[in-house]
């Protein structure tokens, strides 16, 4: 099949980006495929092209409603009209209408919990699927923010015989996550197509300090002297707010962003950052997914991320435009304890699990039982899933193993920071990548000369022109 011709005729591109063609060929050969591609590397073409030549519909399972809406919208904009995004937020009548003509759609985006709705999965079994795609496939494995227990149910759905090939897409995956993806999605001898996660235009620095006051001082000086736009990641909402206020006092256009803010303000802050009204964002890990901004020049970590994968993903939001970008991580020895505490507090403890299990057995409702056992939201969801499938002792063992693994991942992150080896190479080797060429601006271990571009700050004219209320409306609507 002349893929290049199809690419040009149907999608208007002259050539494939690295990795795309290989993934497409595997799928056309009906092989299960795991594609590890950095964000912004054209993941969606990997299923759009095969979908357009194969007979039947492509099912795409996506963890975030906003993300799937976004992708469906982009496909429609590019001329593919046979797209639908189906999730449990749609009104009942709308869902019924879509379900009635499901076979007419070429690309069906769904959220994972749709699969546990019997009417839908029955309907799905009756239409012809050419391909099943799982977006953000690492959500099956990570405990914590990204983890989606709903993803564990996809495996149950995929048990069906003679299913079409499966494509698991993700931006980061270490060996463990890869194994989880393969195992839980019941993939058959998948081909792993990996594009290097190395981002040569990003330089890495570790800055050792002794107190959080020192961190604040460093950040204040850094932000005053170097270019934005940038993101500062903090471990808590409180710290994000605190840093934002400190920087505002210095006259920086900055806002904090975290799940404690009302939804409208969060959208506004994102939009202001996108539009360049804000130069910096002080955020918890709630900021990032679905934010398309190419010219982020700096990512600063005020804390120690729980895993190398999380770190690389957050850092990877910088420099999407290919221009130089800088990642700095501030570290003090007590950070390891702090991060460890945060990780463990998310995990249900043994007595909590036993307590919950007993109460469910005694007929308490899951809601009240989880409250009594003081489980976190995530903890409850995972536990509920496990309880359907395993005995209490197995569950305890699983959580114990999970907890050990979490600590191990944190230990590796600490190693990356304190080990004294090239940060880039160490991170890449964590993902099973070797060697590669070192860019001139590599990392603080390899030695960073004064990086000139970082200090070329243009003085932005403060566009704080004040409009009256009716001028503002005229400005917006004419």
């Amino acid at each position, binding site marked *: 099949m002349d893929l290049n011709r199809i690419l040009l005729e149907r999608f208007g591109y002259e050539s494939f980006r690295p990795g795309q063609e290989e993934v497409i060929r595997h799928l056309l050969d009906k092989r299960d495929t795991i594609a590890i591609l950095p964000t912004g590397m054209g993941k969606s073409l990997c299923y759009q092209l095969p979908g357009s030549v194969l007979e039947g519909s492509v099912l795409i399972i996506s963890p975030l*409603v*906003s993300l799937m809406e976004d992708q469906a*919208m*982009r496909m429609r*904009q590019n001329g593919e009209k046979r797209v639908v995004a189906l999730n449990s*937020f*749609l*009104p009942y009548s*709308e869902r019924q209408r879509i379900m009635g003509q499901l076979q007419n759609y070429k690309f069906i985006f769904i959220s994972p919990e749709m699969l546990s709705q019997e009417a839908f999965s029955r309907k799905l079994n009756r239409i012809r699927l050419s391909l099943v795609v799982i977006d953000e496939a690492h959500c099956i494995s990570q405990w914590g923010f990204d983890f989606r227990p709903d993803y564990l149910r996809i495996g149950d759905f995929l048990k069906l015989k003679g299913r079409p090939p499966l494509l698991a897409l993700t931006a980061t995956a270490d060996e463990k996550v890869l194994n989880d993806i393969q195992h839980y999605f019941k993939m058959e001898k998948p081909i792993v197509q990996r594009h290097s996660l190395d981002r040569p235009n990003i330089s890495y620095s570790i800055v050792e300090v002794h107190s959080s006051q020192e961190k604040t001082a460093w950040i204040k000086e850094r932000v005053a002297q170097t270019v934005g736009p940038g993101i500062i990641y903090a471990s808590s909402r409180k710290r994000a707010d605190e840093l934002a206020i400190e920087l*505002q006092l210095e006259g920086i256009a900055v*806002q904090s962003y975290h799940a404690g803010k*009302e*939804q*409208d*303000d969060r*959208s*506004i*802050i*994102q*939009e*202001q950052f*996108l*539009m360049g*009204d804000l130069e910096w964002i002080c955020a918890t890990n709630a900021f990032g997914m679905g934010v398309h901004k190419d010219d982020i020049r700096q990512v600063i970590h005020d804390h120690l991320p729980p895993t190398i994968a999380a770190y690389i993903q957050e850092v990877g939001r910088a420099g999407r435009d290919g221009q130089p970008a800088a990642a700095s991580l501030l570290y003090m020895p007590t950070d390891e304890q702090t991060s460890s505490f945060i990780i463990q507090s998310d995990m249900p403890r043994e007595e909590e699990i036993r307590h919950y299990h007993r109460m469910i057995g005694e007929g308490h409702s899951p809601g009240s039982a989880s409250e009594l056992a003081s489980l976190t939201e995530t903890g409850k969801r995972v536990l509920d899933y496990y309880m359907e499938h395993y005995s209490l002792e197995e569950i305890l063992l699983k959580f114990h193993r999970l907890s050990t693994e979490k600590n191990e991942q944190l230990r590796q992150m600490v190693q990356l920071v304190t080990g004294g080896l090239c940060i880039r190479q160490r991170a890449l080797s964590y993902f099973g990548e070797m060697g590669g060429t070192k860019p001139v601006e590599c990392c603080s271990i390899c030695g960073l000369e004064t990086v000139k571009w970082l200090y070329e700050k243009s003085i932005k004219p403060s566009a704080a022109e004040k*409009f*009256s*209320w*009716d001028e*503002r*409306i*005229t*400005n*917006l*609507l*004419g």
Partner: protein
Amino acid sequence: MNLSSILLFVISKMNGQRTLNAGLHLLRGKKSGQTLTDVEYFNVKPFFAILPKLEESTYSQAIDELLDSGLIIQDEKFIKLTEEGSKRVEELPEFHFRGWDYRGREMIFFGRIALLVQTLSFLREGEFSFNPIQKDRDIQIFVKRLLERQPLTDPGFAKRIGDELKMALLKSGMSEIQKYIFACRLTGSTATAKTWDQLAAELGGGTDALRLQFIECLHRLLPIVEDSDEFPFLGKVAFGIKVNSYLTDSAMHTKRLFDQGHSMASIATIRKLKMSTIEDHVIEMAMNDKRFPVTHFVSEELIQAVVSKSQELGTKRLKLLKDEFDTLSYFELRLIMTACKEVDN
């Protein structure tokens, strides 16, 4: 206007007859028998549910401010105004909330306007791709339907909506600062909305006070566009915002059975609910229907007797009335006080 000044007003209405938390339940819009009865007794419908997410700590802080400045005192369990407080109430600005009608749903109305303005603002510039500022799916679907078969890309259409909006804001009688806040919460291709923190920094005052201004602003805008042919498009945006039944769903269910002729006891059995819950429902029904047949429950003479006693004693406290009318139950007394509110005024 801030939380303390609203509380001072509410306390003046409930003077000396309610405990500390009655105000919290009122502002949050708690749908319990007691709160719903209070709303009616004390004429505080406008403040019902204006702050559905009010934190207890924020509330106590505002109460403490009033206590510290000597405007209110706590008399055993009850909260009442001091002389100083009564004077201050006279100086309060007039409030224009309509909480009973909107109950927090005014934010859905604004969400629709915000997404509508953003959409038109981008489309008139020929930009078809933008990040929707509203993430709420119901709002997105509503606006999408609203814009079906409209001349979306016609700049004249956007301008018409803008003019309608300006006209409605002018006619609403809201303050300049409220119009400014409203406009600053809008996003489009040429300008992005300001967060509450940013508005507070610019205008002074706290974010809570600004939010209250904003809520009142929406409560003034909504009736203007609801009742007039002048604002055809905004009228559609306001569709379904005002509550159409003032009864809670559960009270509605009880009412249907009551209308079919069931007694309260039989309703309690049918619905497997406690008698006290059914009593709350009956009170709710009486509150929302001026023609509610109170005489089904108490004789006309007793009603008159209770009402005049209440006036004589100058109280609406059930405990005191109960001392006078020992044969009547608390429920019957509540019912009388609810249904005969107008006589009282």
